[in-house]
């Protein structure tokens, strides 16, 4: 009896905390349905009259469909490239036991210590001088910034894949690339999910790098559009909140469907 009472208490505390956690989302959505005057009159309660006008206006002003497409394109292409290239590199490094290989691996790991701001200014000006501040360069940069952690994670996973598999594939007539693509890469799938999750979350939400590299030519991602939008409507919370709600919606939907993989990916990525 005592034990059950304790669990019930914990259950209640947990649920109360969950409500506290959700309050910001509640306030955002509820006020996005209000008129400007309604927000001023009553910020905390439900709207007297639910209006969709804010959403329509924010949707149009944000150019949401285009921004969503841009975010999706950049995130998907960058992540796929990071997954394939990092797995290949980690495979090569793990199957080469020489000193050089260790040094290169160490360099990749050390690159994780370098914060973005340390290289941002020369990077942007160097690409700018070559007139290469565009979407392809952005994807290339994501490979450079995302590869370190991904290689590190794949390298750990590869230790668990015996080299006798490589030898067997070789005897069966596979070349190195076939061995990787048909034997090793499929075995790395659980790690590929983790690497994918980590990179998707980061790239989808990234603001600073795209703000410096792309923009002004219709390739803006959601965070960029939102920043411009927010700047224009800074004192008009009904529109700003509608814009924020729309921007969050795809993430919440994605979370709903891939929740298990996301939480597992985060745990693996952080713990290893």
């Amino acid at each position: 009896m005592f034990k059950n009472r304790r669990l019930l208490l914990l259950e209640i505390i947990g649920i109360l905390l969950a409500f506290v956690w959700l309050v910001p989302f509640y306030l955002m959505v509820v006020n996005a349905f209000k008129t400007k005057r309604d927000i001023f009159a009553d910020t905390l309660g439900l709207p007297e009259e639910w209006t969709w006008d804010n959403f329509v206006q924010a949707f149009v002003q944000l150019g949401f469909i285009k921004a969503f497409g841009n975010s999706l394109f950049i995130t998907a292409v960058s992540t796929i490239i990071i997954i394939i290239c990092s797995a290949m590199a980690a495979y090569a490094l793990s199957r080469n036991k020489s000193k050089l290989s260790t040094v290169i691996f160490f360099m990749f790991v050390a690159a994780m210590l370098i914060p973005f701001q340390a290289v941002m200014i020369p990077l942007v000006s160097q690409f700018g001088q070559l007139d290469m501040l565009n979407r392809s360069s952005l994807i290339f940069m994501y490979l450079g910034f995302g590869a370190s952690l991904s290689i590190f994670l794949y390298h750990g996973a590869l230790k668990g894949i015996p080299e006798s598999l490589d030898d067997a594939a070789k005897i069966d007539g596979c070349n190195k690339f076939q061995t990787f693509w048909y034997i090793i890469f499929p075995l790395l799938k659980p790690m590929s999910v983790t690497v994918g999750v980590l990179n998707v979350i980061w790239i989808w939400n990234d603001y600073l790098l795209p703000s410096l590299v792309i923009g002004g030519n219709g390739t803006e991602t959601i965070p960029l559009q939102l920043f411009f939008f927010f700047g224009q409507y800074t004192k008009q919370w009904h529109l700003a909140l509608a814009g924020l709600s729309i921007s969050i919606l795809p993430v919440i939907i994605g979370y709903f469907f891939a929740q298990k993989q996301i939480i597992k990916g985060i745990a693996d990525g952080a713990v290893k």
Partner: protein
Amino acid sequence: MKNRDLSFWLFLAPVLVAILIVVIYPLLTGLYYSFTNWDGLRISKFVGLDNYIKLFHDKEFGDAFWFTIKFSIAAIIVINIIGLGLALIVTQHIKTSSFLRTVFFMPNLIGGLILGFIWQFIFTKAFASIGESIGIEGLQGWLSTTETGFWGLVILTSWQMAGYVMIIYIAYLQSVPEELIEASQIDGANRFQRFRNITVPMIAPAFTVSLFLTLSNSFKMYDQNLSLTNGGPFNSTQMVAMDIVKTAFTENSMAYAQSKAMIFFVTVAAISLLQVYYNKKKEVEL
């Protein structure tokens, strides 16, 4: 694969090229630029340590640095206490466990920029409204002072990152063997003794990972800073990352901004190395 195998280099090539061009080369040239009067395009003079000497006397940079340190310390403590607390709750045998995890983790998936905007609304409008209805003066004018801006950033970051840290603690809490807990129960250890003497040592690596992650994330924070306070009032809540971006792209002092970036780099790298070293040592002792 051997060093002289073409395949070894082909497998490495894309990543090696990308990291060299995107990270290593800019870092090295950046180091060089910081000793010159580089304006983003060309260099006309080598100035030695001038940028660094100037930086040492720069009150704005000093303030930003100090603010970042204070913020990071507060954030690490609050995030880890809440995160561990949440993990301890949801690892009990309660029915809503997986629902609670979902909720607590949710803010992490959303970008710092968006979260900062949402909380700007909450601090400036909702807080004022709550304060008015229950008569608490202290809830008015949030984000308009340094103090409220500071705690605003801490609250936002804690709300965002506690769920992340919770996931890490859960992973380790679940690996504590049941037998150990049972054995200690038989030996007559109470709940607190069990936590102190069994759970805490067993999840020691979780502290390493979480402290390291929260420290480096808070220290490097930019998006939330930009969208919540934008450094205001009067640059008093401006963190180092933002100071570097502003010096470079608003004030256009490229070489000077790069010298700040180098100091930032050395600090971040040193903290990370020191902490990993310290925690590794501690784990062995246990």
